[in-house]
């Protein structure tokens, strides 16, 4: 780990991770819409074109399926592509390539060809944007064996997780909360450090209730738990899941509240509840509670604040758990 660190926001931290990995390893290349000259619509890839040239920072045509599909071919050939999908709402046309190929090429060829690729995409409610600019459908990708799903919650872990993702031998979906991009600054060391892809993080210890969150919801959760003796877990990597950290906490607290932005039905909270209900049921004192988006089409900005779990809603449900 390096000596110097700077206060960076998440955009800057991710940019730094990309820059350092590209300096370290010439097989790392970036591709996507507007990632070059424009530096990305959120400026995450700013300056990288100037530093690394247009064969490594590739402005592609407007075509998501071939962005990911070409990344698969590049990865199999020996590069480490980092593809950007401009918003998570535009990742759907790539699902065929991700599910049919990226996740399977290792298995299909018994390891002869692999897919060390990262697909970065901004996710979630956050910038008062139109239709399909606020998606949070991480659960879809968690259902697909062969893919990993990573959601940083702070500039520090964003950098470390992205470096791990780039070096990972398998495809990683890397979700960046638009709400967090410029919300918080944090000390981020220069130089390489990694945050492992199979460990959740205890953000705060507590005895009465375990609250599990990731990405932008972590911050609302931290506000909501102020009046409780709550243990807060930031998953960071959703798939593969760090069950151990969860079980340990559940055994201690006996109460669980899960918070996510996606609609409730079949959100990743379902998997967490089910895992706990199957393997740690006997430690539970209270029902497993999910605080989530509603089972509706994500509304446009005028109503979006009603859609997302608010600090109030989270608090109320924690109180409910505490009644047992």
């Amino acid at each position, binding site marked *: 780990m390096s000596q110097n660190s700077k206060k960076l926001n998440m955009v800057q931290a991710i940019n730094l991770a990309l820059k350092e990995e590209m300096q370290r390893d010439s097989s790392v290349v970036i591709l996507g*819409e507007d990632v070059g000259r424009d530096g990305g619509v959120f400026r995450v890839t700013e300056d990288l074109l100037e530093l690394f040239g247009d064969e490594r920072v590739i402005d592609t045509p407007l075509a998501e399926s071939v962005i990911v599909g070409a990344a698969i071919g590049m990865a199999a050939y020996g590069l480490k592509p980092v593809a950007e999908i401009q918003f998570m*709402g535009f990742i*759907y046309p790539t699902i065929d390539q991700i599910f049919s190929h990226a996740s399977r090429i290792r298995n299909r060829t018994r390891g002869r060809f692999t897919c060390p690729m990262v697909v970065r995409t901004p996710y979630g409610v956050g910038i008062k*944007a139109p*239709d399909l600019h606020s998606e949070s459908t991480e659960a879809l990708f968690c259902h697909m064996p062969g893919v990993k799903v990573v959601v940083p919650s702070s500039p520090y872990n964003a950098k470390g997780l992205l470096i791990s993702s780039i070096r990972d031998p398998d495809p990683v979906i890397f979700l960046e909360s638009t709400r967090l991009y410029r919300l918080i600054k944090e000390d981020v060391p220069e130089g390489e450090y990694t945050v492992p892809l199979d460990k959740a993080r205890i953000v705060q210890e507590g005895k009465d209730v375990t609250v599990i969150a990731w990405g932008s919801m972590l911050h609302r959760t931290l506000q909501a738990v102020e009046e409780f003796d709550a243990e807060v877990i930031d998953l960071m990597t959703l798939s593969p899941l760090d069950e151990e950290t969860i079980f340990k906490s559940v055994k201690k607290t006996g109460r669980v509240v899960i918070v996510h932005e996606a609609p409730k039905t079949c959100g990743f909270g379902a998997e967490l509840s089910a895992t706990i209900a199957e393997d740690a049921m006997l430690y539970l004192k209270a029902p497993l509670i999910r605080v989530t988006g509603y*089972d509706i089409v994500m*509304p*446009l900005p005028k109503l979006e604040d*009603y859609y997302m779990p608010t600090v109030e809603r989270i608090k109320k449900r924690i109180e409910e758990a505490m009644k047992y």
Partner: protein
Amino acid sequence: MPERIIESFNIKRLDILDENGNEDESLMPSLSDSEIKRIYELLILSRTFDHHALSLQREGRMGTYASILGQEASQIGSAFAIERSDWIFPSFREMGVYITMGYPIHMLFQYWSGDERGMKCPDDLNIFPLCVPVGTQVPHAVGAAMAVKYKKDKAAAICYFGDGGTSKGDFHEGFNMAGVFKLPVVFICQNNQWAISVPREKQTASKTLAQKAFAYGFEGIQVDGNDVFAVYKATKEALDKARDGNGPTFIECFTYRMSDHTTADDATRYRSKEEVEAWKARDPVPRLKLFMEGNGLWTGQYQKEVEEKSRDMIDEAVKMAESIEPQNPKDMFAYTYGKLTSRQLRQMRDF
């Protein structure tokens, strides 16, 4: 059996009205004086709308907005050829089309302010809502055209998208299906030279976009997209051909996006002032003005009246949009399905 030529194509380009307001008489579409004035008034109205929308956004009274500045001839020229029984499938940058079709302007402001009620198209119009994911509206237009054909309706589907949209898989699959079934659909590409920061020549290596139609067995044509007569003529002919059962047409409107991509964009990061300046000379509005002036259809007084009327209409629409009662949060649930589910009913108790 040597190497031999088995198929040949020519790609055509249509220009009628030049930058000085001079028309090619042999190509002029038949438009009455009052129709030409109506077109001019729609150009001004749309530009006024655009201007106000940009201001409102800057004042924080509206969300991110995609300007149509410079593309008015492509939009109004084409929409002016559409019948109310036709079905329209826009992308997200067709405010001029909505306005030409008579879509309530206050609803457009309402939509751009983040209220989905603005996209509840009036019953006497068939305009699909703004399509955010680029190119995905192409299959919808094709499907509507299949329905038109099956029902033997006298109508056509018309589909709008940008130069960037031509790169998407759905463009291809939709075009191909339109060709196979010879469907009554007209595809209009506003090639405004940019897809956010990606210039047209990096979007695709083909010399024109129009030529892409030949890959699907139907005709493509490039028109001067800043020439309202050329756009109108090409669209009218294509729609007539479609309604007559003679299949699809692809029209590339060669135009320019004078503004930033959206209010969230800064185009100076990726394109030169000189380029923008050069296109200013090709502005679609002054050339129609010059034409009209030359033909005794335009005076300074007329201009003042048109501008005033436009401003009034837009002011009125903004006022209406801003005085609409806010949605009840419960409305979030109401249109997920035809009927609320039991889960939703429980979730709604939060409100």
